[in-house]
């Protein structure tokens, strides 16, 4: 489904050149739940961003299905991200000036052919799934970390994407809340057949997934 071929990412600043990813070859199958582990700075986020088409590799190529990606800023890629990808971040990235429901609706705003009523219904459905329907009118500032992450999950799934990319989704949460989030993701993978790629530092979380990829200094070690 997603295929990385000889992907490298090199960050160059005036003084230093960092190889964030070094010749990665990886193929993710449909319906898979993949976890990515490795020490801090080894390139996990970089890899996830490249898979999510919000960052360009310095070398190598990404294919989604039969298509190899060329223009990362064009309209077709924006549309693809919108319809097929859902993102979850360690630091939630909610818009503080929008209510919970408006945050969840956000991806649908950039999709054509959906009216306000449908958007609202879909957002409510997503919030119900993460158990936060009663907090719809709240603002992010009024929520706990676990609740914020559940809102972010609702936002990631509202457009019914086939792939979810989660970068340390439980990294900022305690183990109880972390488990709740993990359960939601497992449920999405098992019942909705959503492909999930999750970066984590937690071995027990990783063990619950189908496959584990380990990175070290930008290279895949297992």
């Amino acid at each position: 489904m997603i295929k990385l071929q000889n992907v490298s990412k090199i960050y160059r600043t005036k003084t230093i050149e960092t190889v964030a990813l070094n010749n990665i070859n990886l193929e993710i199958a449909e319906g898979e739940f993949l976890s990515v582990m490795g020490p801090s700075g080894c390139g996990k986020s970089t890899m996830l961003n490249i898979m999510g088409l919000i960052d360009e590799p310095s070398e190598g190529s990404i294919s989604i299905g039969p298509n190899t990606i060329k223009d990362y800023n064009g309209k077709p890629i924006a549309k693809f991200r919108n319809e097929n990808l859902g993102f979850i971040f360690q630091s939630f990235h909610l818009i503080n000036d929008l209510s919970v429901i408006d945050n969840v609706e956000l991806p649908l705003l950039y999709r054509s052919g959906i009216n306000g009523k449908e958007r609202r219904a879909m957002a409510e459905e997503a919030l119900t799934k993460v158990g936060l329907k009663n907090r719809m009118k709240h603002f992010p500032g009024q929520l706990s970390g676990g609740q914020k992450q559940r809102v972010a999950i609702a936002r990631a799934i509202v457009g019914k994407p086939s792939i979810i990319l989660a970068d340390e989704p439980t990294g900022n949460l305690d183990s109880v809340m972390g488990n709740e989030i993990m359960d939601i993701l497992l449920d999405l993978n098992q019942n909705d057949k959503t492909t999930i790629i999750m970066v984590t530092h937690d071995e027990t979380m990783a063990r619950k997934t189908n496959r584990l990829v380990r990175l070290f200094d930008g290279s895949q070690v297992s």
Partner: protein
Amino acid sequence: MIKHIFTLIWNKKKKNFLLFLEIFFAFMIMFAVFAFIISNMRVYYSPLGFDTENIWTASLRIPSSSDSTEVAQMKTLLLQELNTMPEVESASFSGLAFPFSGNTWSTGNNDNGFNFQTCIFFSDEHYAKTAGLDIIEGRWFTEEDKNSKYFPVLITKKFREQCFAGKPVLDSLFILDDDGDFGEFVKIIGVVDHYKYHGEFAEEQLGTFVYTPSTSKDTYVAHIRMKNGVQPDAEEKLNKLIASTTKRADFSIRKLEQRRIQSSQSTWTPMIALMSISGFLIINVALGLFGVLWYNISKRRSEIGLRRTVGATRANISFQFITEIIMVTLIGIFVGLFFAAQFPIMKLFDIENINYYYAMLSSAGVILLLVLICAFYPSRQAAMVNPAMVLHED
């Protein structure tokens, strides 16, 4: 999308309030400055109705105790002498109320079934030609008018439109002065296009030209139209001629063109000052706006990154930022328009309402344009943000 942007603005009303205030005050100040400038410029560009180039004046200050016959002889002689001078095209006499003199003689009443207030200009039979007046109906005075039963007068177009609209006026009679200074009735023999005699920046008032023969001792301001391209020594020659003919030295020759320039100076100066102040104001508002927008966008980099991640194109991002700022601007302008509309409604100043409407339109237009220009670059910059980079930042 528009509704979404509106929600965003509403949720951020506190943050947007300062921007709103800036727009509002900028609008109000611009409105005031524009109203002042526009009303002055509209008067300025309305026609004067007479010529100033090559027209010289000399006030002879004839005492009212002088003997009428002597004065008549002297004035006849002076006109003759002037007309024989090769540099002179024509000459005439008027009363003290003449262009840029600062003098006014006005009268008014409501004895005719309408109310009016008009300035009165005493003029002889040569004045229209000398001053270059435009007569749009009827004719100017001739010497035969001396024997007229009623005082012959010409009125200005403005007077005609205001008090005799749609009616024929030639040969009609009306009461000009209820003290009977001009007999019971005066008779209209013609209409003059314009006579903005107070100055280029003074709104034209209603005017009535009352016939006063050139031999009368009541009109002693000589108007002399010189031919094109007169030599510099013409003034000296003219001076000598008038002095020897009138046996007086207490007059001075002044050029109408210079008076025109002088009389406008006192309006040009504050107006240019105001224009430069409003120029600075516009630059200031622009810089302020640019700063605020730039700051806003840099504060919202992760929001931009997120939007891009969930599927916004670069165009979506620019559109959102430009629309946000335009909406706040429009709110500021609408509130400003509400206050500005009180000026014409309550008639706070003695200027025509149309000036306020133009001022509203132009200040709203200038501010919108300013905002668009200032929003363009920051919004483009926002669209260029690399989502992976900014989401990594915190």
